[in-house]
């Protein structure tokens, strides 16, 4: 989150803070019911409630796990909806900077509604349909050992 206006300073950075060897990058496990996806249409939703996070204030502070200021524990709940717009495209990437993976991906639009709390603050986003996506896709992906073993 940023202060309003062009170039507004970042004032909150909320993420689960998973780093190696502790965890995947800002990735958390969810119940299977948290995701529903139709790979054919590219429609999907992601939903979770009160996922533990920290507010690091800024991205730089989060990336390097700084104490300037110290992270503040909190939670975030979110609901993201994808709507496939097509077309589907095949990707087989061997470029390490883009990831080594293969899959089929459908272009999409997405919207999100969320809430959170950390420290002295609570957060409540505007309704789902007021948000927009600048990039979204849904797909089927294979990587790592499954690229060779199927």
């Amino acid at each position, binding site marked *: 989150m940023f202060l309003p206006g062009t170039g507004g300073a970042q004032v909150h950075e909320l993420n689960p803070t998973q780093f190696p060897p502790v965890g995947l990058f800002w990735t*958390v496990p969810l119940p299977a019911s948290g995701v529903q996806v139709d790979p054919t249409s590219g429609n999907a939703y992601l939903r979770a409630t009160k996922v533990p996070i920290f507010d690091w204030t800024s991205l730089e502070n989060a990336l390097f796990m700084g104490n300037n200021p110290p992270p503040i524990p909190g939670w975030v709940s979110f609901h993201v909806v994808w709507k496939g717009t097509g077309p589907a495209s095949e990707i087989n990437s061997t470029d390490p900077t883009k990831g080594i993976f293969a899959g089929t991906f459908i272009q999409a639009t997405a919207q999100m509604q969320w809430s959170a709390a950390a420290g002295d603050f609570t957060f409540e986003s505007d309704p789902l349909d007021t948000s927009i996506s600048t990039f979204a896709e849904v797909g089927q992906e294979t990587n790592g050992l499954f690229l060779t073993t199927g």
Partner: protein
Amino acid sequence: MRTIVSRRKLGFGALGATLVGSGTAMADDRPRKRELPWTFAPVPVQGGTPGLGVGNAYHVFGGPGQEPATTGNFKGSVGIAFLNGNVTRTNVKTGEQEYLPFNGTDMRFMTGTFRGTDGKDHQGTFALV
């Protein structure tokens, strides 16, 4: 909710990782670990931009033509979105409210099969937040 725009401004590519899971924060003076009662864990994806964060982490930003999954040895469904919108922040002590934008928030899901650090295949569902 993290901001892909900010990381791009920083010139960072991405980080990598090995998930243990989420849960309650540890009682540490620099709380940064979360633990799950798992006996296995996923592994990070291959590739990405190295040299970030503690432990020389790496990560794929995501975007057109880039890998959305953060779990390695994975096959399944994925979704990624960069989202913009607005949020009302309330100071619970003072009641003061402020209307703030969230820009380029990167949200992802992965659901399918992954081979864990135990060498076995597992079903799992994950979100990058």
